[in-house]
C-alpha cells in the first residue's frame, strides 16, 4: 500500500535516527504471497512496541514472526495495513529510509570489510560527517566489547564475536528501533546464555531503543523481553508480559509453547466450583468467561504437580492417581510420565532418595490456584499437547 501523501518521504537523505523514543506499531498488517495473494503469511497483525520496550515475537518456524520483522525493516511489503515507526508511517518507504538497526541470524557481516569498516558502513551510508565516524565506531565497538578487534576481518572472528560486531554495526547508527532476527540461533548453548546477559545489559544502557526480537526460543523470550507476542500460523495468539503468558496463558498454544504444560480436557461443573476430569472432580477457579457445562482445557505446569495425595502444608489440593510410565532423571528433578486414566500427566518432582519406578501406582496433587482453565476452541485444534 503506498504511503499517504502526508507521510511521503522527504527527499532528504537517509533520515536521522527518528527521535530518541520511537516505538513500532503494526496496524492491521497483512502479508500474502502467491500470484493472487493466496498464501497468507501474516494475518492482520495489530501490535505495538512501546518506546524503549523489548518485545519478543515468539513462534515456531513458519508462524510469520520473521515476516512481521521484515515488514518493519522494509524488505516485505504488506498487502494491507500500515507499519509505523514512531509517528511516521513507513509502509511505503524503502529500507534505507527507515532508520532502523538490524541484526540477522547469520550476521551478514560484509566479508570484504574489516570490523571497523563494517561498523562504519551505516554511518558512511548516511553521510555522517567524516570527523564523527571514528568516534562513533569506537563507541559502538566499546559498547559490545569488540574494541580490540577493530582491525580484524569478519572471517577471523568466532561466531560470538561476529555477533557482537553485527550488533555494533546496528547500534552505530543510533537507531530508535533495533530489529533482532534470531540473533542467537547460530551460537552454541553456552555462548547463547552469555550473549543473552549481554543483550540485557545493552538494553539497560540504551533505554530509549525499542527492540523487536524474533525468536523461536522461549528461554530467550522469557529472559529478555518486557512483553512477548506469540505467533502461530500467521496469527497473533497471545501477547503479554512473560509472567502473564507463563502463569495465565490464554490459549493452549501459548501454554505449550511458553514453558511445558499438561493440557487436560475438562468440563466445567454446573455449579462452576470446579471441573470434571475423566470422571473425577477437581477444584479449580473458574473464570468469568466459562459457563457451567462448557468444555475447557486445564493447564498445569509440571513443576507445580507434587507427589502424594496432599500438599505437605495440608492446604487444599486436588489428587490425581495414575501409573508411572516413564521416568527421566534431570539432575535436580525427576520428570515423571504418569498415565491418569489414559491421559498423560507430567510431573517434575525434586530428586529423592528412592526414585519412583515405571509401573508404580502413585498419587499426585496440585493446588487449585496453580491450575489455569483455557476455554476450548481458542485455537483451531488441540494438537499442541506437550
Amino acid at each position, binding site marked *: 500500500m503506498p504511503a499517504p501523501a502526508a507521510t511521503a518521504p522527504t527527499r532528504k*537523505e*537517509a533520515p536521522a535516527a527518528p527521535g530518541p523514543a520511537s516505538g513500532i506499531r503494526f496496524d492491521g498488517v497483512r502479508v500474502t504471497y502467491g500470484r493472487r495473494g493466496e498464501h497468507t503469511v501474516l494475518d492482520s497483525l495489530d501490535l505495538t512496541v512501546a518506546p524503549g520496550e523489548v518485545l519478543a515475537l515468539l513462534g515456531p518456524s513458519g508462524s510469520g514472526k520473521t515476516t512481521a520483522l521484515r515488514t518493519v*525493516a*522494509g*524488505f516485505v511489503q504488506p498487502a494491507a495495513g500500515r507499519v509505523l515507526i514512531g509517528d511516521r508511517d513507513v509502509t511505503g518507504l*524503502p*529500507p*534505507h*529510509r*527507515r*532508520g*532502523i*538497526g*538490524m541484526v*540477522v541470524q*547469520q550476521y*551478514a557481516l*560484509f*566479508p*570484504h570489510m574489516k570490523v571497523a569498516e563494517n561498523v562504519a*558502513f*551505516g554511518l*558512511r*551510508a*548516511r553521510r555522517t560527517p567524516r570527523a564523527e565516524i571514528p568516534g562513533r565506531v569506537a563507541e559502538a565497538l566499546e559498547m559490545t566489547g569488540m574494541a580490540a578487534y577493530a582491525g580484524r*576481518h569478519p572471517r577471523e572472528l568466532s561466531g560470538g564475536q561476529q555477533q557482537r560486531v553485527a550488533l555494533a*554495526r*546496528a547500534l552505530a*547508527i543510533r537507531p530508535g528501533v533495533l*530489529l533482532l532476527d534470531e540473533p542467537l540461533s547460530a551460537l552454541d548453548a553456552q555462548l547463547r546464555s552469555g550473549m543473552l546477559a549481554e543483550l540485557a545489559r545493552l538494553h539497560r544502557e540504551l533505554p530509549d531503543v525499542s527492540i523487536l526480537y524474533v525468536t523461536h526460543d522461549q528461554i530467550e523470550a522469557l529472559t529478555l523481553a518486557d512483553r512477548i507476542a506469540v505467533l502461530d500460523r500467521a496469527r497473533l495468539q497471545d501477547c503479554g508480559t512473560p509472567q502473564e503468558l507463563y502463569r495465565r496463558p490464554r490459549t493452549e498454544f501459548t501454554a505449550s509453547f511458553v514453558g511445558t504444560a499438561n493440557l487436560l480436557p475438562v468440563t466445567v461443573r454446573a455449579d462452576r466450583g470446579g471441573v470434571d476430569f475423566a470422571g473425577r472432580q477437581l477444584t479449580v477457579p473458574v473464570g468469568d468467561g466459562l459457563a457451567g457445562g462448557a468444555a475447557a482445557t486445564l493447564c498445569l505446569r509440571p513443576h507445580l504437580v507434587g507427589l502424594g495425595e496432599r500438599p505437605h502444608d495440608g492446604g487444599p489440593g486436588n489428587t490425581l492417581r495414575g501409573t508411572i510410565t516413564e521416568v527421566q532423571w534431570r539432575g535436580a528433578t525427576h520428570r515423571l510420565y504418569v498415565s491418569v486414566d489414559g491421559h498423560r500427566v507430567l510431573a517434575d518432582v525434586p530428586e529423592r532418595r528412592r526414585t519412583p519406578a515405571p509401573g508404580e501406582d502413585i498419587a499426585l496433587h496440585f493446588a487449585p490456584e496453580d491450575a489455569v482453565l483455557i476455554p476450548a476452541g481458542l485455537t483451531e485444534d488441540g494438537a499442541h499437547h506437550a
Partner: protein
Amino acid sequence: MLVPSKSARRAVHLLFFALFVPVFALPLLVIVAASFATGWSGALPSGATLAHYRDIAHGDALDALLTSVLTALAASLTALTAGTWAALAAEKRTRRTRRIIDALFLLPVAVPSVVVGLSLLVAFSRPPLLLNGTPQIVILAHTVLVTAFAYQSVTAALTRLDPAYEQCAAGLGARPVHVLWRVKLPLLLPSLTAAAGLCFALSMGELSATMMIYPPDWLPLPVQIFAATDRGSLFTGAALAVALMATTLLVLLGLSRLRTKASYR
C-alpha cells in the same frame, strides 16, 4: 568406496587411464612436443628445434598474438560490463521479465558462431554502420559471443549471493547505488574475475565468427594457426597453438591470483 575389492579397483583405474591418456592427456602433450620438432614420422617427433618459436618472436605471428590479446581484452571487458549490467538489472525485475532477459542474453550461446559472424557481415556492411573490414567488427563479434557467458556467470553468482548482505546494507541506510558499489560488486568480485577469465579465454580461441569477418589487417591468432596448418606447416601451427594456450593460461592464472586476493581480503 563403490568398488571395495582392491583388484577390481585397480582394474577400474587401469580402464580409466586407458581412456583418459589417449583422449585427454596425449592431445595437449603432442601439440607441445610437435612445436619443438620438424618432423614426425616415427613414434616420437624428430628434429628438435626452437625455430618455430624464433619465427613467432619475429614474424606476423607476434602481431597475431597481440591482435588476439587486444581483441580478447576489449571484448571481455565490454562483455563483462554488459553482462553484469544486464544481470544486475534483471535481478530486480519480476520472474517473468527475468525469464525473457535470460532467454535474450543466452540466445547467442545457441546461435552458431558462424551465423553470428554472417549476421554482422550482413548488418554492418553498409552505411551508416559500415564496420566490415575494420578491427571493430571482430571485437564486436567476440563481444556478442562471450556476453552470454558473462551474463550467465554473474547471474549464477547473484543467485548464490545471500540477500542478507544487501538487506543489511539497505537497513543501515545505504542507498541502492551505495549498496551496489560498496557491497554487491565487491562481493561479486571473485565471480567477476572468473567471468572475465572465461570471456578472455573464449575470445582468444574464437575462430568460427572470426573466419567470417576478419579484415586483412586484423588477424587473430586462431586464424593464423589455421592458415599455417592449411598450407601444411603443422609444426609452425603447433608452436602458434602453444603460444595461444600459454597466453590464455597466463592470463587465467593472473586472474586467479587476483581472485584469491579478492576473496581473502
